[in-house]
């Protein structure tokens, strides 16, 4: 594990993010510095308004830091234009959302395949990868179902498959277990943990869920936009 942690995937240095809400400036992040290394299984937790979401948005190139430096795979996000940012999101970042957010007109197979399709990967290779992934997340035989024909847990598995399919540097999972029951949450975490251990995929969770925090090997606790605890849990 120590060897894996030597390769930084995400680096935030003195990052601030200030929003304007009416006449008031809200400091969501206040000089936050954090490094996430390859293969980590990290949970970012904290009370509402502590900056969890903002961190994910900024790492995911969905939002821009007010100051400081953000790098993903060594690339400074502030130096990228709109198109380059979309390529960064496509190739280096995977998202798993709380509300699954699958594309409703695509089948399970097509949802899992979509990012690879955006990358221009050949159809045969896409097919092989998607079928393997669907098998890994336990959805063999459900390729042709549309999202509305799947349960919440099944949809989230597809979302995980979609996030992983393109071999991103990091997967950002926003409360991935919040909308599913306890058993399903366990199964989803099993899947993600297995993928993390087998494939070395880096996960960053934003969560309130004790189950997620129990599984995480690193806990980053935020309060008022600052890291107050950064704890490695080697026993997990």
């Amino acid at each position, binding site marked *: 594990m120590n060897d894996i942690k030597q390769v930084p995937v995400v680096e935030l240095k003195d990052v601030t993010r200030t929003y304007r809400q009416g006449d008031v400036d809200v400091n969501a992040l206040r000089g936050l510095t954090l490094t996430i290394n390859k293969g980590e299984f990290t949970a970012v937790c904290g009370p509402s308004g502590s900056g969890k979401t903002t961190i994910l948005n900024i790492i995911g190139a969905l939002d821009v830091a007010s100051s400081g430096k953000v790098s993903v795979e060594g690339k400074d996000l502030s130096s990228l234009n709109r198109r380059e940012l*979309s390529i960064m999101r496509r190739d280096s970042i995977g998202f798993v959302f709380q509300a699954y957010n699958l594309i409703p*007109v695509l089948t399970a197979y097509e949802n899992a395949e979509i990012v690879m*399709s955006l990358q221009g990967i050949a159809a045969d290779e896409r097919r092989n990868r998607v079928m393997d992934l669907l098998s890994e997340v336990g959805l063999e035989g459900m390729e042709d179902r549309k999202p509305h024909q799947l349960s919440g847990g099944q949809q989230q598995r597809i979302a995980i498959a979609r996030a992983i399919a393109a071999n991103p540097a990091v997967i950002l999972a*926003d409360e991935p277990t919040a909308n599913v029951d306890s058993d399903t949450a366990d199964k989803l975490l099993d899947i993600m943990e297995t993928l993390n251990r087998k494939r070395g995929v880096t996960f960053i969770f934003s969560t309130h869920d004790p189950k997620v925090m129990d599984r995480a090997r690193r806990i980053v606790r935020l309060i008022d936009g600052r890291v107050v605890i950064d704890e490695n849990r080697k026993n997990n």
Partner: protein
Amino acid sequence: MEGSNLGVMAWRNIWRNLRRTVLTISSIAFGTFLAVISTGIQDRNFSEMIDLAARMGGGHVTIQHKEYQDYPTMSRTIENCKEITKSALKDKQVKHVVTRITGHTMISTAKGSYGAGFMAIDPLKEDDKTLSIIKNIVKGSMFATSMDRGIILGERLAKNLGAKMGSKVVYTMTDRKGEIVRGLAHVSGIIRTGAPGIDSGLSILPIDSVRKILGFSENEAIQVAVFIEDQRKSKQVAKRLSKKSGTGSATLTWNEVNPELAGFISMKIGGAIFMEMLIAVLVAAGIFNTLFVSVMERLREFGIMMAIGFSPGSLFRLVMLESLWLGLVGLVSGAIVTAGPYYYLASKGLDMTAMIGEGGSEVAGVAISPIFHVGIFPEHAALIAGAVFITTMISGLYPAWRAGRVVPVDTIKLV
């Protein structure tokens, strides 16, 4: 992303709100239907009017003395009619060529005298393909020869003159020197067209009888009337024939000879284009509304798509492809909706007798049938299809641009 995948997504997206899509497609189909039917009525009716005008007057292309148009006197004649006819018949667009003497005459009987137009023709070379009113002879028949002593009168003119079949009439006209000359004829036919200007003001005479009275040679006439396959080619044919017909003559198209009819048709076409543009704007507004609402409803989805790696360009293309599908489905629906009524109107026509009367109406001396048929020119059908397609694509531009400008963090709301 592969275009085919985006195309599939776009296809499925347009069916997500079935009612809205059906309404939009219906508006495209209805707009196409209106445009095709109204253009088809125009194309067919104006073509028929032009052909009719040609067959009532100087043909699609008229060759006459170069000053006759401005100074229509019997001194301005064509003196090489046979050569011009022979040369014109070599053009593959040309179907018929006839020579005529036209002008004004005073017709007298014991009851009185009335002014009328006259058209002196060769009865052996003319039929209803070159002179439409021949088929409107309701009494008597066409002259037997070009030296016949008969005269055919409009029904109303005959009534005014108190002339019946076989009645003797004297026609008076001015010759090339400006002298008054007279001819005697027997009424050998009566014409009824329903067009008041024709029925009360036209007479037909045999050409060689008139040549003799006017002192014309057998190769001399006022005009050579050329009839062609497709009236739309009049200008090209006139251009070709003008090179062959010599410097002393003018080669005119039907719209130069009949500017009143040409003006009427231009005005009607202008009005129709305005109406069709209005329809296009209404259809465009419908498509724009559908696409824009559909994009605004999916901002979150577009945000998610951006988050997983869609570029602004691919979202723009996705919505444009949705536009494309709407346009194509709308056009196909339009074709299906239009086919039945078009076939009916092309074969049976739309009877407007109740509105404009049995005799129809008349423009520039050309009778308009009260039964409207459709018959769209292929290039106009292609133009409508192209216009619908382009309108659809233009309507999609702003919604597509809007989709590509989505800011993911504003639309997703991660927590």
